[in-house]
């Protein structure tokens, strides 16, 4: 098993003046070179946990070790190893993107030439090169998000923490960001990823922790966690027009539920899945459908069943 980069034990956080535990007795490790996904609904305690791991927030009790260093006693040591994607860009809001990325790289110990090289490369990769001399706080939300990503990327820290890295981004640039994260991971960077975008994140996450109401509800590889949830195959059908015969027909295939009047989902057992698919193709036919999908349990199902279901619904 790879060495632990982060090791958190019995981590509990209660904010001053608040009885509720934002984090409640969390114990887990993040291993070297892995992409660790932290999933959970709003208010689950993910940001509190990340702030403590990044040394920005002192735990009420429990311990955090980063490469063996006691983060609670020496929070300033975290900056030598970890790059945290800033939540906002206010600290450097009046800088131009290239200035903010360059200076951040220099603070992290890059030489002037290397900081300039990485700045140029990141601006190109993240489609920010054309912005030129426009202050960061004058950019669109998506562009500001890309700048915060570049601020985390620059300087090649061995550990990187991202909080909702693809929110506010268009599909094309989202793909670029996911590819960048995968490329960093292939080079050995340990990545902690906090996200709601479970479907996209599933492609890169190697181990996952699901947090709900401050507690760690599940921890393991996506495969291990998927094995713990409903194993039925899900058929999703999007009819071209309203079809009054659909409910009765779909109910015969399995547990059918309408998502909208024309959009249906059917849960059927794995053994009977082939028959169900044949019936959809034979009795309904692809001509009557705009879309037809066959889905096995996903990380999103795990997330919905173990963590986020109640609050996301």
């Amino acid at each position, binding site marked *: 098993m790879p060495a632990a980069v982060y090791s958190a034990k019995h981590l509990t956080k209660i904010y001053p003046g608040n009885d509720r535990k934002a984090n409640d007795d969390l114990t887990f490790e993040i291993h070297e070179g892995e992409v660790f996904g932290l999933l959970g609904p709003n208010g689950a305690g993910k940001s509190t946990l990340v702030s403590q791991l990044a*040394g920005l927030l002192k735990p009420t009790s429990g311990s955090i070790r980063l490469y063996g260093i006691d983060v609670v006693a*020496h929070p300033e040591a975290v900056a030598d190893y*970890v790059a945290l994607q800033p939540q906002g860009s206010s600290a450097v809001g009046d800088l131009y993107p290239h200035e903010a990325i360059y200076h951040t790289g220099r603070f992290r110990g890059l030489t002037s030439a290397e900081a300039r090289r990485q700045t140029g490369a990141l601006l190109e990769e993240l489609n920010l090169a054309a912005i030129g001399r426009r202050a960061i706080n004058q950019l669109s939300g998506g562009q500001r998000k890309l700048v915060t990503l570049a601020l985390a990327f620059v300087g090649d820290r061995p550990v990187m923490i991202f909080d909702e890295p693809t929110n506010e981004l268009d599909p094309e640039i989202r793909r670029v960001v996911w590819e960048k994260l995968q490329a960093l991971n292939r080079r050995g960077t340990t990545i902690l990823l906090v996200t709601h975008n479970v479907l996209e994140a599933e492609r890169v996450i190697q181990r996952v922790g699901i947090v709900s109401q401050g507690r760690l509800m599940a921890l393991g590889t996506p495969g291990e966690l998927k094995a713990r949830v409903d194993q039925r195959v899900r058929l999703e059908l999007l009819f071209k027009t309203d079809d009054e015969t659909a409910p009765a027909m779909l109910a015969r295939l399995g547990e059918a539920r309408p998502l909208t009047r024309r959009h249906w989902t059917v849960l059927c057992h794995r053994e009977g899945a082939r028959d169900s698919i044949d019936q959809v193709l034979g009795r309904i036919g692809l001509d009557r459908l705009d879309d037809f999908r066959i889905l096995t349990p996903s990380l999103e199902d795990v997330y919905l069943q173990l963590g986020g279901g109640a609050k996301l619904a």
Partner: protein
Amino acid sequence: MPDANFVYDVKDVAVQPYSPSRRRSVEHFWRITLVLLADYRSTWTIQTFFGFVMPLGMIYLFKYIDSGLTQERAVFILGGNLVTSIAYGPVMLLMNRIGWSRQIRSFDYWANLPVSPLTWVLAMSAVSLLLALPGLIAVYVMGCLLLGLSMAGGLALLPLIPLATLSLTGVGAFLGAYAKNYQVANVLANAVVGFVSFLSPIMIPMEHMPAPMQWIARLVPTTYAADGFRSVLAGNFGPGLAYDILILVLLMVVSLVAVHQKLNWRAA
């Protein structure tokens, strides 16, 4: 506070620090100054104007009230208003900046970089001084012209200005460290300005102040900064000026050490 270089001495650390960049305090000071200066690209004229207009107004007011102005009185007024210019400009700016940074959590960015809060405060003080300089020069030049003072010894003020600014901003940063948000910082900044304007011997000579206030005034840097400015303006470069400088250096060191201990940009 732990030693900044502690990481290198810890025996049980599995991996050595990726970059020993914490050691480059001078470079960090310069770089933070550049980053913070950029924040005032669009507002530096307003900031400068703010540090200039109030003291100049006070000079006008005193000149109007005190028609038979002696040179000694003119030196007192101008010396006091130079300090007011620093208090209204750099100190308010620093305190508000700390409060605002807390409110919008922009310290999170700095806390995730290997730079120390003290270096940030020193850089912010330098930025404040740079923004205050045009106003200070304007107050000095206009004050000398209005009050009929010679500008012959003006260059001697230059070494005193950063010293006065650093000792004052040290106090400002220390108080700002108690500000949880912009509103609290604003209240504290206004309290400092009220104190500087009316409760220390900036506008009112020490001997005319109530005894308790005289004792308090002896503990704050504005008193010695104003005395120093007045000595230079009057051409008195004797032991009195040396004493003011010594006390300012001491107060600067004490306040910056206090800032180093108190200003923690990590949340509780």
